[in-house]
């Protein structure tokens, strides 16, 4: 293993975010504790990181001996993840005001989680994957408990940490078993090659299957799939809302992408074993997530369950990726879906913050949305758009996201799963559109007629998300082309391996 200095270019975005994190925390402790300064630096820094990500894409193959990917697909993911962090920071701007938070630490933690997410999304090796997951998770544990004065927040952090540690153990165990079964391989491509050697007289050992199962469990925990989702509603509810928005979009995206890479690019030959069980998990996730969301009265919990069900839809793409010839379609569909999901989810959480702030007790009850359209037609309109997009009704981005993911699954032959997915999204219409009904068809109450006072930062998020959702819903072609062409070329670094 030799080190090539140009490899550093491939991880320049990660290095840049990390440096930014250090810079922000240093500025806070040494120079200035002004919110504006810290936020400005973080936001501008993240924009610069986006530019860097685009600039260094595909500079070289086989970076760090194939431990991280450096292709266009990864570039899009890095830009997406940076975008999620950027919106989360923009969303936090006025949320943190008046709360006795240490802003610098907050931003630093978000940036550190972003580093982890970026490593995770670009990893093509079990070691980098684990490194990414842990970097991301530890920052997230701290973020979940950031409202230290609030017992719910502490509870969230504790639960998240305990269960997260629990699942990490299984993940590591799975990695160890896979390492052993493939004769000491950790690279995805190497694992794929090693697995082809099994069969016939040389059957795969039982602990290979067990290892795959355990890794699957570890990743399913991160994407919050049923029955490994229990942490997510409690954590989402307890965490500060911008963090919830961040958590529901970023880590989920990063984890599902590495899921796709590992199972679609390293383990497709084992798909007979993992596709059925993942199919069951996906079906249960879609159905359960949506059904439980029906009876939620708190919008943060409702969105938490909704994000569980979206993880189910995304799992369809992972499953489809196991079928030969479909994996780049599945990857393209997933990329589109992630972008759409990020926009509508961030938008919905922004409105949730706005509405809850106007309440005296600052709670997140769905009742607060009664008659919102009368006083705030624009905000209600934006929320209605986000809800419609989450349901997956055209002409919104959510519709095409679902369409692309489902059509990849149909191509791979998982028609019953797609039928379940469509039925599940029909169920989801009940609770998403309930918000719309509340906003437009219920009389306003004294509480709901209060001025929401959206600040410029929140307005920007809502406008940007709305415009992009409509843009992607009316003209998905351009984005789809990008997703398609980049996923055709997902690199699977090939090391020259000599099989024993």
């Amino acid at each position: 293993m030799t080190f090539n200095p140009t490899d550093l270019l491939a991880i320049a975005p990660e290095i840049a975010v990390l440096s930014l994190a250090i810079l922000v925390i240093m500025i806070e402790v040494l120079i200035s504790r002004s919110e504006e300064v810290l936020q400005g630096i973080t936001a501008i820094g993240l924009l610069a990181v986006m530019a860097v990500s685009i600039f260094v894409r595909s500079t070289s193959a086989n970076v760090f001996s194939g431990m991280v990917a450096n292709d266009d697909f990864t570039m899009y993911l890095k830009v997406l993840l940076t975008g999620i962090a950027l919106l989360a920071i923009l969303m936090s701007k006025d949320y943190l005001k008046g709360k006795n938070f240490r802003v610098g630490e907050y931003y630093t933690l978000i940036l550190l989680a972003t580093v982890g997410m970026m490593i995770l999304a670009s990893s093509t090796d079990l070691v980098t994957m684990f490194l990414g997951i842990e970097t991301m998770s530890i920052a997230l544990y701290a973020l979940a408990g950031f409202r230290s004065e609030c017992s719910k927040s502490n509870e969230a952090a504790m639960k998240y940490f305990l269960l997260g540690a629990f699942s990490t153990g299984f993940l590591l165990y799975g990695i160890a078993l896979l390492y052993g079964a493939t004769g000491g391989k950790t690279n995805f491509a190497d694992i794929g090659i090693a697995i082809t050697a099994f069969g016939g007289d040389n059957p795969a050992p039982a602990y290979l299957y067990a290892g795959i199962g355990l890794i699957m469990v570890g990743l399913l925990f991160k994407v919050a799939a049923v029955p490994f989702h229990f942490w997510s509603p409690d954590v989402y509810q307890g965490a500060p809302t911008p963090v919830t928005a961040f958590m529901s979009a970023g880590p989920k995206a990063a984890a599902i992408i590495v899921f796709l890479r590992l199972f679609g690019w390293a383990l497709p030959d084992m798909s007979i074993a993992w596709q059925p069980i993942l199919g069951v998990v996906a079906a249960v996730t879609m159905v359960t997530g949506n059904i439980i969301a029906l009876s939620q009265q708190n919008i943060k919990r409702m969105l938490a369950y909704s994000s569980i069900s979206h993880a189910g839809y995304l799992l369809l793409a992972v499953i489809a990726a196991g079928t030969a010839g479909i994996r780049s379609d599945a990857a393209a569909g997933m990329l589109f879906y992630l972008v759409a999901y990020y926009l509508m989810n961030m938008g919905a959480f922004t409105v949730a913050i706005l509405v809850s702030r106007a309440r005296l007790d600052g709670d997140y009850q769905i009742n607060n949305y009664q008659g919102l359209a009368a006083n705030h037609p624009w905000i209600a309109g934006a929320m209605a758009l986000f809800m419609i997009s989450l349901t997956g009704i055209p002409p919104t981005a959510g519709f095409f996201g679902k369409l692309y993911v489902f059509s990849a699954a149909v191509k791979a032959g998982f028609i019953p799963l797609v039928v379940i997915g469509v039925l599940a999204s029909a169920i989801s219409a009940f609770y998403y559109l309930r918000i719309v009904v509340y906003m437009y068809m219920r009389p306003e109450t004294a509480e709901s007629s209060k001025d929401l006072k959206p600040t410029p930062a929140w307005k920007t998020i809502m406008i940007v998300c709305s415009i992009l959702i409509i843009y992607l819903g009316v003209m998905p072609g351009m984005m789809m082309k990008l997703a398609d062409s980049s996923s055709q070329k997902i690199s699977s670094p090939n090391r020259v391996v000599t099989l024993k």
Partner: protein
Amino acid sequence: MSNYLYLIPIMPFIGFLINGIWGKKLGEKAAGYIASAMIGIAFVMSVTAFFELLGHDPHHRVIEKEFFSWIAVGDLSIPFGILLDPLSAVMILVVTGVSFLIHIYSIGYIHGDPGATRYFAYLNLFVFFMLLLVLGNSYPIMFIGWEGVGLCSYLLIGFWFTDQAKATAGKKAFVVNRIGDFGFLIGMFLIYSTFGTLTFSGAMHGAELFVGSTAIIFWMTLSMFLGATGKSAQLPLYVWLPDAMAGPTPVSALIHAATMVTAGVYMVARNSFLFIMSPGTMEIIAWVGVLTAIFAATIALVQNDIKKVLAYSTVSQLGYMFVGVGVGAFAAGVSHLVTHAFFKALLFLGSGSVIHAVHHAHAHAGFKGDPQDIRFMGGLRSKMPTTFWTFFVGCIAIAGVPGLSGFFSKDEIIWMTFANGHPAIGVIALIAAFLTAFYMFRLLFLTFYGSWRGRKDQEDHLKDSPKVMTLPLTVLAVLSIIGGWIMIPYALGGGMQFEHFLEPVFEFANNFAGEKGHPSHMAEYSVMAISIILAISGILLARAWYLKNPDIPARLANRSKLAHKVLFNKYYVDEIYNFAFIQTFLGLGEALWKSFDVLIVDGIVNGVAKLLGWISSVVRKIQTGLVSNYALMMAIGIVAVVGYMVWKI
């Protein structure tokens, strides 16, 4: 220019955004100027594009630009592209040109209305969709434009939505058009399933190679024609157009006379390559067209509302266009579309000017009467000279007086019916031409000649409309006169430049139909002579009845009470529809609602909702809040997953 073609529809869209978002702040005046300026820019660009197209060799006058891939799912790939060929070039010129004039006119007309900025925003949006409709290079884009103009038409008919009747008229237009759109959609699906593509060029290519039963083509074209009957107000779906006159008059001029309603004709012309393959559909189109023409003309004979007369006249003239495309004379149909856009816009704007003046006169005199009833007008010639002269030009143009645009285009259609072997249709079309001349001059005489039949105090307040309104009238009048000079037939020594310009578009259809042979010029002269005689006699009859002996019509109406009543009540079509469809459906609906819906559908829907709610409340309880329980659940999950994986070997 060809690289910037997309800017043509974008301009009005920008106008829509500006007026839609900041309209209230900008105020009425600025909104009107911005809206007009945007259309003006689009018009200038259209002219540029037109000349660029002219620069090409006649057989390569097609500019097709695909800007981006719009939808791509599996094998279905729809690019977002623009197609500029002679047909769409003519259409964008007419659309932007006429709309520009109407926008300017609107500045004066809508002045003082509290919803003026909204009005201009809608008007801009309409032009955007209309341009999309005619410029799109595929069926889906055309369909978006098609739906979009329908939406704008609905919004503008019900512009004064506080008036219940007007809101209802808007709704009626919407519902009737939906029936037609359904046909369009089915046609589109059939095209996709037959040719596997949705672009015009792809479908044309498919049609060239098509072998097999033409039955599918018949159904395809027939469903599309159903769409056209809805949008272009043909039998039996014409009923919405007369009611649509509830909207502001410039809207009637733009949407319900000059542009939107001709979309059906455009669609048939655009798909000439498909329609020509199905003689059955062509026959149906020609007959529907001519029957609509005469049917609407008879109703127009006795209407007293100035806009209603023009509305039925529009329905009738649209019928002519369908006769043209139905007998295979696509170029003639489009010619009439163009000239009709000029003189019908002129007539509507003229009527708007009259209504405007009468309305103000009524208002000054504190009189609450219908400002559109021609029985209480008269003698406006001297009060409103410009309006009168331009209206007069419009009347002689539509009546088919030789030398004006209407003569050349209408005559070409009538002549083509004979030349292509449909004499029966030709004869009916000739009779309708006679009726047209009659009812238009009846309108002219009752409105502008004689003496004022209202109160004296109103008469003193009558005055011609402001410059901003009369200027567009003048321009349109000039166009109504000279617009036909590029369509003069060979028989009269003309060059038919317009038809030649359009020829490449219909090349496939013309080749498919084959050479019809050249009937002698003599035959053409005789048809022309008959039509001129009929037009003149129609005018003279109207003069005799309404100017010289005004009591004749009343006596006549008295003598044949039944016929008059039937005509006056528009053949009771609305009532028949109401009885046959609306009441029946309402009754059926109620019966179904009581039995089927309440018991079964509601039962199932509510049951499902309840069941889901119950399951939800039960399943929710798994979420106990205790970490140890969560860990237990996870452990069970892990055992299940790993157990399955290992057992599976």
